C-alpha cells in the first residue's frame, strides 16, 4: 500500500494534488452554518485570495443539543452539542459528484446554576463543534481530491461503454 503525505505535491514545485483552494462553498442559513463555512473557506484558502473555482461544495448544516445524564433536581449536569453536515463536492462544468457524505462534530459543556452562563457556554460549544466538523471535512475532501488527481494523472485504459443502438429516441 502507498504511504504519502496528503498535501505533498506529486511533482515538486507544482500545486499539491489535493488542491483544496479550487473549491467554492455554497451559501448557508444560520450562525453555526456560517461558522462551518468560514472555517472551511479558511482551511481551503489559508486566508489568501482564492483562485478561480473548479469544484463546488454544497453544505447542509444541522445543529442539535442533547442532555447528558440527570440530577435530582431535574437538571442535567452536562449538555452535548452536535453539528452535523451533509455535503456534496461536485466538479464544476461536468457536475460530476466527487464525494457525497456527512460528517459531524461534537462538543459538550457543563451546566451552571446561572442560566446566562449556560446560554454563552452553548454558543462556545457550537463554535468548537463547528471547528471539529470543518477539520474532519477538510481531510476527507483532501483525500477525495488526491484520489481524483491520481485518476486523471495516469488514466487506466477503460474499454469504451457499449451504447444502446442509436435508433432508440432519447427523451421527447
Amino acid at each position, binding site marked *: 500500500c502507498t504511504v504519502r503525505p496528503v498535501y505533498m505535491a506529486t511533482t515538486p514545485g507544482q500545486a499539491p494534488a489535493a488542491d483544496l483552494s479550487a473549491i467554492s462553498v455554497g451559501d448557508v442559513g444560520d450562525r453555526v452554518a456560517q461558522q462551518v463555512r468560514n472555517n472551511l473557506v479558511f482551511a481551503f484558502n489559508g486566508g489568501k485570495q482564492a483562485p478561480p473555482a473548479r469544484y463546488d461544495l454544497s453544505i447542509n448544516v444541522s445543529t442539535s443539543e442533547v442532555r447528558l445524564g440527570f440530577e435530582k433536581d431535574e437538571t442535567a449536569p452536562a449538555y*452535548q452539542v452536535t453539528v452535523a453536515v451533509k455535503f456534496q463536492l461536485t466538479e464544476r462544468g461536468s457536475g460530476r459528484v466527487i464525494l457525497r457524505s456527512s460528517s459531524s462534530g461534537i462538543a459538550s459543556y457543563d451546566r451552571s446554576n446561572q442560566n446566562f452562563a449556560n446560554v454563552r457556554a452553548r454558543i462556545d460549544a457550537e463554535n*468548537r463543534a463547528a471547528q471539529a466538523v470543518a477539520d474532519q471535512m477538510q481531510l476527507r475532501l483532501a483525500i477525495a481530491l488526491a484520489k481524483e488527481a491520481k485518476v486523471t494523472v495516469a488514466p487506466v485504459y477503460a474499454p469504451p461503454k457499449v451504447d444502446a443502438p442509436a435508433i432508440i429516441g432519447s427523451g421527447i
Partner: protein
Amino acid sequence: QTNPGSLGFGTDENFKPTPGAQMLLESDQLIYDYDKSTVAAVGGVKIYYDGYTLEAKKVTYDQKNKTMVAEGGVKIVDRTGAIINAETIDITQDFANGFVTALKLDTPSQTHFAAEKALRKDGTTTTFYRGVYTACEPCREKPEKAPVWQVRAARIIVDHNEHMIYFRSARLEFLGIPVAYFPAFSSPDPTVKRKSGFLFPSAGYKSALGAFAKVPYFWALAPNYDLTFSPAVYTKQGLLLDAEWRHRLDTGIYTLHMAGIRQADPEAFVEEGTRNSGDQEYRGGLRTTGQFFLNRLWTFGWDATLLSDRTFTRDYNVLYESTDVAVSQVHLTGLSQTNYFDMRGYYFRVLTNDQGAEYNQARQPFVAPVADQNYLFDKDVLGGQLTMRNNVVSLTRDQTDCVDSGGDGICRPGDAILGLKGNFNRASTDWTWQSQTIGPAGMVLKPFAYLRADAFYLSQDEQLLGIDDNGQYYRAMPAMGLEWRWPILAAGGASSMLIEPIAQMIVRPDEPLAGRLPNEDAQSLVFDDSSLFDWDKFSGYDRIEGGTRANLGFRYAAELGALATVSGVVGQSYQIAGLNSFAVEDLTETGTVSGLEDDVSDYVGSMTVDSGRGYFVSARGRFDSATFDVNQAQVTATGKMGDVTASASYLYLREQPAIASTNSGTPTDTISGRASWQFTETWRLFGSIAWDFAEKQMAGNSIGLAYDDECTTFSIAYSEITQDYTDLQTSKSLIVSLQLRTLGGTQFQSNFSDGNN
C-alpha cells in the same frame, strides 16, 4: 429515426397491442400532480404489458398532452427477447392507453369510497347510499377483509364545491366491529387547509386536578389571522380558559397565547419540600412570540412568557414545555455570507419548585443587552485572514448566587460564587490574524496572532476581600502562535489509515487580574478533544487564557473498507511558562477540576465508530496524566439490529464543577437508554430506562406500544420518574393517543403521583 407513433422498437416492426391486453404496474410510489395533471410511478417501476416488460426508475404519464416517458436506467425487453437499455424513453400512445385503464384511480389523498349506489347531482355533489368511507388501503391479498377502520353510513354526501363530506347515521367500525355511532357529522375533505370548527377533544386525569376534558374551537377569522379557544373543565379545580391569537403580516408572524383559572381547591398543590407554588386561587400565564424579516440580512423577534407562579405551565401543561426555566428574550439578528451580528435581551424565570436557595428568582440575572459581532475582512492582510469579534454585556442581579457548601444557607468565604448582586458591564474586542501555507513534504503551517482588550464597569456591592467588583477595570492580551500539522495517508485496497500529528505553541503574557474579576459568561470549562487545540480554552470573554502553552496530539481516521470508519483525536496540553490561568481560583472555581490545573494536563481522547449500517458509537474521555484514572467520560451509541433500534448515552464525571451548585463536588455516573422493536410491519414496542450508578437506583423508565399504518396511528405509553429524581408533583403518567388520517385524532392523558395527596 423511427416514425414517432410506433413504440420505437426497431427490431419488432409489426407490433400491434392485442386488444384488451392487461397491464400490470409495480412501483414504490404513485404520485399525482394535479396542477400539471400527471401521474408518475416512482421508484423500482416494472410494467408488464402484452409481452413487453419495462423497468425504470420513474415513469410519468402526462394526461394533458398524452405522452408517457420512462426515465432512469430504462430497460425494455420486447416479445422477441431483445433487451434495450437507455437513459430515457418516450413511450408513445398505445403503451400509454394501457397505462390509464389498468390504473385504479383513487381520490387525491388515497381515501376510498365504496357504496351500493352512487348518485352524482349536476357535478356538485355525489351521494353514496349505504356507503363506506375509509382512508385505509384495502388489503392486497384479501381485498374483502375489513380495513382497520371505516365509517359505514346510510348516506355519505360529498360536496365538491364546499369540499365537505357529510355523514348521515354513521357508525365508526374498527376491524369490522362498530365502536361509535354518530347521527350526523361532517368533516372537510382533505384538500381543505383552513376551516373554522371544533377540533378534536382530549381528556385525562391528574391527581391534583381531577378528571378533565378539553374541547378546542378554531375560529378562522381571515386567511392571515385566527383565534383558538381551548377551554378545559377539571373536576377538582374548575374551568381553565385558554385563548391563542395568531396573526401573519407580510413580513412576519406574531402570536399571543393566554390561559388562566380560578382554582376551586388550591391546597391540592401543597407538597412538603416544595415552594407550594400552585397553592393560590387565581393562576394564569401569557406567552407572546414574534419573528419578522427586516430585510435580506436582518430579522427581529421575541419570545416572552409571563406567569403567575412557577408550576402553572406544568400543572395544566399549557404555554411552556420545560419545567426548570422559562427563558424570555427579544433579539435583533443580522447574517451576511461571512459576518454576523446579534443583540439580545434575556429574562430567566425559574420554574423549579424546590425550596433550595439556589432556585431563588433573584439569583438569575436580567441581561439587557448582550451583543455579539463577528466581522471577517474580505481583503487578505499580509497574506492572511483578519477577523474582528466584539461583545458587549450589561446585566443586573438582585441576590448573590453562592454555592452553600455548608448546607446551612450561609455563604462563607471560600464558597464558590456564581453571580454577584449588582450591575455588571463589560465590552470586549478581539482582533485575530491567521494564515496557512503548505510547507515542504505536505506539512501545513499555520501562523496566527491575536489581540484582546476588555473594559469592565462594575458596581456589584458585595465588597468581597480580594475581588475587584466595584469600579472600572481594563485588561489586554496580545498573543502569537504557530500550528504545525502533517497529515499522512496510508492507503491500500479498500481501506486507508490517516494519521495527522498536530503541534501548537502560543506565546502570551500572564492573564491580568486573574481570578479577581467576576465570571459571568466563562463558567463552563470542558477540556476534551474539541477544546484541546483552542487558542483560548475559556468558554467566554470574562476569563482570558495567559502564559505560554503548547498543545500536542494527533488525529486519526481509519476507513476499514465497507466495514466502518473509526476516527478520533488524542492529545495533551502543557503550560510551558507564565501563570497557568486554569490553576487560578476565581469566584466560580472554573479551572479547578477541569484537568488543566496542573502544568501537564490530563490526557484527552475521542473515538467515533461509524459503520454506516446503523451503528454509531462516539466516546470521549479525560484521563489523569499520572494514574490514567478516568476523570470524565461521555459515550453515546445508536444501533440497529434487525427490527430493533436502540440508543444509549452514558456520562461519568469524577467530580462535578462548582457551577453545578448543590451537586458540585459529587460524582455523576448515569446511563439512559431507549429501544424500539418493530415486531410487525405496523406494530412497535418501545421503552426507555434511566439508571443512576452513583446512587444505585433507577431514575425513571417508560414502556409503550404503538400501531401505525397508512391511515391510523395509535399509541399507549406509560412513563415513570422515580420520586426523588423529580420535583414534579406527578411522577407517573399514562398517555393514550389515536389519530385517524383525514378524520382527526384525540389523546387521553392521566398523571398520578404516589405523593401524599
